[in-house]
């Protein structure tokens, strides 16, 4: 027998009995950050590939959703901070060894880049604003400049989007103290998932049939790639050290098995993959809206399950000798 117990009561909030510092706020931010990355990259892709006619929504209106999604994500991220008044401290330092510091500065870069993307197609995407912006010379000149440099802006948007999408994964993978996260696959996995959710969003919102088909096709490839990365991630855990294998057990029989396999892999990846394949063959058109919705749910589920299982995986776990249950038993009736 080997038993390790805490014999002085330690009940540090958010840390005991198991780490639970990050909850839905961070998962939602990681999801919306990935979605924003995908939106930027696809808006840039249709520009660079000259697919304006085929994909009018992605070409002229999609970019507007980027700062909206990101702002919502940054709001939930702000909600997670414990020392909120000091949030400005992210911008009084750059710590090159901290992915979170890189992220803070990348977020700052995303706003001007997406603004330029929006302005470059503002007149075509939102003709209703034309009379207002063209009334003054400065906005008119700025928008003219953006329209003339649309391709160059797209060329900047692609790496910016990749940086945003991949950093959210690297952020988690850098925690060697949490074996479940400590895999280099997480960066690409989060990036591909972000692209997949953005493709699903276009397929969901666009009214153009050809565009829906194009993004459904893209999403098929992305979901397949994501499944492959999930497989690699599981292999790296299964072939890792005792700590990695222990972490893997959380989703192979442990408490997070159902949410990982049924919610994320099943409902979030396999079912939409199947629905989209059927759709491509002209079957199940009435379910056309369901697949992208499931992909979006799956994208969120990935972040939530990662956040939960990662925090549960640890180097140190002591059961406390002083459980609340025992204290209750001591109280006189």
């Amino acid at each position, binding site marked *: *027998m*080997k*038993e*390790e*117990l*805490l*014999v*002085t*009561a*330690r*009940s*540090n*909030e*958010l*840390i*005991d009995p198991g*780490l639970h*510092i*990050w909850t839905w706020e961070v998962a939602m931010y990681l999801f919306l950050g990935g979605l924003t990355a995908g939106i930027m990259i696809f808006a840039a892709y249709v520009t660079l590939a000259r697919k304006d006619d085929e994909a009018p929504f992605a070409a002229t209106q999609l970019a507007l959703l980027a700062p909206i999604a990101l702002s919502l994500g940054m709001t939930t991220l702000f909600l*997670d*901070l*414990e*020392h*909120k008044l*000091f*949030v400005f*401290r*992210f911008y*009084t*330092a750059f*710590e090159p*060894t*901290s*992915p*979170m*510091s890189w*992220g*803070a500065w990348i977020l700052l870069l995303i706003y001007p880049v997406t603004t330029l993307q929006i302005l470059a197609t503002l007149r075509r995407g939102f003709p209703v604003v034309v009379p207002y912006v063209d009334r003054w010379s400065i906005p008119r000149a700025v928008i003219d400049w953006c329209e003339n440099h649309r391709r160059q802006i797209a060329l900047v948007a692609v790496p910016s989007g990749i940086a945003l999408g991949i950093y959210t994964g690297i952020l988690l993978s*850098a*925690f*060697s*103290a*949490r074996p479940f996260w400590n895999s280099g696959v997480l960066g690409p996995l989060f990036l591909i998932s972000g692209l997949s959710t953005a493709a699903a969003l276009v397929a969901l919102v666009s009214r153009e049939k050809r565009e829906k088909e194009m993004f459904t096709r893209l999403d098929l490839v992305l979901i397949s790639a994501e499944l492959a990365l999930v497989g690699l991630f599981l292999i790296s855990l299964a072939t890792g*050290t005792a*700590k990695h294998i222990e972490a893997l057990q959380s989703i192979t029989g442990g408490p997070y098995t159902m949410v990982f396999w049924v919610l994320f892999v099943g409902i979030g990846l396999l079912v939409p993959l199947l629905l989209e394949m059927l759709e491509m063959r002209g079957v199940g058109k009435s379910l056309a809206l369901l697949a992208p919705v499931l992909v979006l749910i799956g994208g969120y589920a990935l972040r939530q399950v990662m956040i939960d299982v*990662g*925090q549960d995986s*640890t*180097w*140190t776990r*002591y059961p406390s*000798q002083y459980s609340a249950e025992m204290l209750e038993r001591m109280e006189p009736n």
Partner: protein
Amino acid sequence: MTRYAMVIDTKTCIGCGDCVVACKTENKVPDGLNRDWIVELTRGTYPRLETEFRSERCNHCSNPTCVTLCPTGASHLWNQTNIVLVDADKCTGCKACIAACPYDARLVMHPDGYVDKCTFCHHRVEQGLDPACVSSCPTRCMHFGSLDDPGSSVSELLQTRKYKVLNPETGNEPNVYYLT
């Protein structure tokens, strides 16, 4: 860089918890929060049992992942030593350092919200005193000093006794040693 270490003799520690109380008193740690704690390890089968008490806290690692991953520089090394401190005025409460600590030795200060931890009582070390937990230990099983000084009690104990550190596989190079 001065490397401070704590050496704790598990052969003489009786798990009384005085170190825990001393820390709470010295550092005015609020109710419900703890910067140090005691673990009791029991091994064997009755009646052949073996017990080990360990007074645990931040390991003030030589490779502190909490400092590396802090996005604002709030987690830092004090005065070119291995003593890891948090500057509350730079801390956003993002909790990256808590996730980064393999020993779960950090906590969120309430009600303020900045991250807090064992400081090796650097305010006492500065005056040449031992940390409060070490000073208050009734069995004198705790020792504190610089590993750079070969004559210090911690250096001598580590040269003459068998010891271990917690989870050396993390690569964090912890500086709290347990004599076994």
